[in-house]
């Protein structure tokens, strides 16, 4: 934890807030979890299965995130990537800097701090009765995976479900076996494309927006959920607009540097919006004016 910051926050931040597990948890105090399992998912990404040390499960909605502490190093925002209905708490992390590197090096039995769940997740209720188009880029599949579990778990509540997934190279495809098993199902259409491939790759090559232009959608009956790097999401949103999808029918998950995750510190502010509290999932209608401002 960043000590100076911990001591300077107002006592209001330490006050009790109800969490969805039914327990009252102080939002700035991490609970302790231990690593049950660590799996290597891509050259620079690992998935951690965590178990809360107090035994009380941490319930969350698809698209929400936790603040994870690598003790002695720092705390970062990481989305849940597991099944919200069952199983352990799962996070998939790309090692980019000190905290994420430390987290991805944790082995079975080691401790990690967990604050959360935070934020507004994917619009599962609005998607009921509609076709759902999921567009993921790279590690962006991780925050969408809980939504996929929910869609498949309650399949009858939704119309056509499609996942369009773009990765850098074949070896960067995360959750590879699972993506293959989804491809084999009759109740979800899955298309994968990579930006670069050797001659032995039999699948699509080209950017993910190419999959969108080939894909038929019913704009009036579709809700889109998009997650990936910001540039990718911008172009995906434009490709969906070209397909006739309304800007308030597409939802994007935003990333910004986070500290408090409860709307107090202002670190994650994007114009008038706090990503941690009002998001990370927003409609494109709401994000569009902010995404075009380069300095934000």
């Amino acid at each position: 934890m960043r000590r100076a910051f911990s001591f300077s926050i107002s006592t209001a931040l330490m006050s009790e807030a109800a969490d969805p597990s039914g327990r009252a948890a102080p939002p700035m105090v991490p609970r302790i979890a231990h690593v049950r399992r660590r799996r290597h998912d891509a050259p620079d990404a690992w998935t951690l299965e965590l178990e809360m040390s107090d035994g009380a499960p941490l319930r969350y909605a698809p698209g929400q995130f936790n603040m994870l502490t690598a003790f002695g190093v720092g705390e970062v925002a990481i989305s849940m990537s597991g099944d919200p209905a069952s199983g352990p708490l799962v996070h998939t992390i790309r090692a980019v800097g000190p905290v994420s590197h430390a987290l991805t090096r944790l082995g079975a039995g080691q401790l990690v701090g967990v604050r959360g769940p935070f934020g507004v997740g994917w619009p599962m209720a609005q998607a009921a009765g509609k076709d759902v188009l999921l567009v993921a880029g790279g590690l962006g599949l991780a925050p969408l995976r809980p939504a996929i579990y929910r869609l498949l778990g309650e399949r009858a509540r939704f119309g056509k479900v499609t996942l369009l997934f773009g990765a850098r190279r074949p070896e960067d495809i995360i959750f590879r076996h699972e993506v293959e098993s989804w491809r084999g199902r009759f109740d979800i259409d899955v298309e994968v494309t990579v930006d670069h491939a050797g001659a032995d790759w039999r699948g699509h090559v080209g950017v993910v927006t190419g999959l969108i232009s080939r894909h038929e959608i019913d704009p009036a009956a579709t809700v889109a959920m998009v997650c990936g790097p910001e540039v990718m999401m911008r172009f995906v949103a434009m490709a969906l607009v070209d397909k006739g999808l309304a800007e308030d029918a597409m939802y994007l998950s935003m990333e910004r540097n986070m500290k408090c995750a409860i709307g107090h510190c202002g670190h994650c502010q994007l114009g008038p919006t706090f990503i941690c509290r009002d998001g990370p999932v927003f409609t494109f209608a709401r994000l569009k004016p902010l995404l075009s401002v380069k300095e934000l």
Partner: protein
Amino acid sequence: MENLERILSEHPFFADLDKSFLSLACGCARNAHFEGGRFIFHEGGAADNFYLLRQGRVALQISAPGRGANTFLTLEPGEVFGVNWLVPPYRWSYDARTLESARVIAMDAHCLRNKCEADHDLGYDIMKRLMPILIERLHATRLQFLDLYGAHV
């Protein structure tokens, strides 16, 4: 010929093309079939055809020393390839290889260029159909070049 004209008119690239243009273009077209895993053309060769993909999938590839063949785009039915037919020196700048058995319409490039030259209205119409595809591919290449999904973006 009539059959070929119908096939041509059903391909998205020629959708809604003026009937007289379609007949003109059809004079340069022939059906072709390639088994899976076959090269349709090689980098450096003369760009003597323009291809409209009807069935199967085609990979566009560039080979780099020590790194073998790299696929930069795969194409589906309804798409076109071999756009080098349009601009001098009329040479392929990549390889095209079938990923699976493919049916194409091959349009004789020399014939098509002559017809576009003789009838600028036809030439302009074909240009308007090609330009968005070229721009989209240029844009896609830029995004690929940005390497969007890496940790450094």
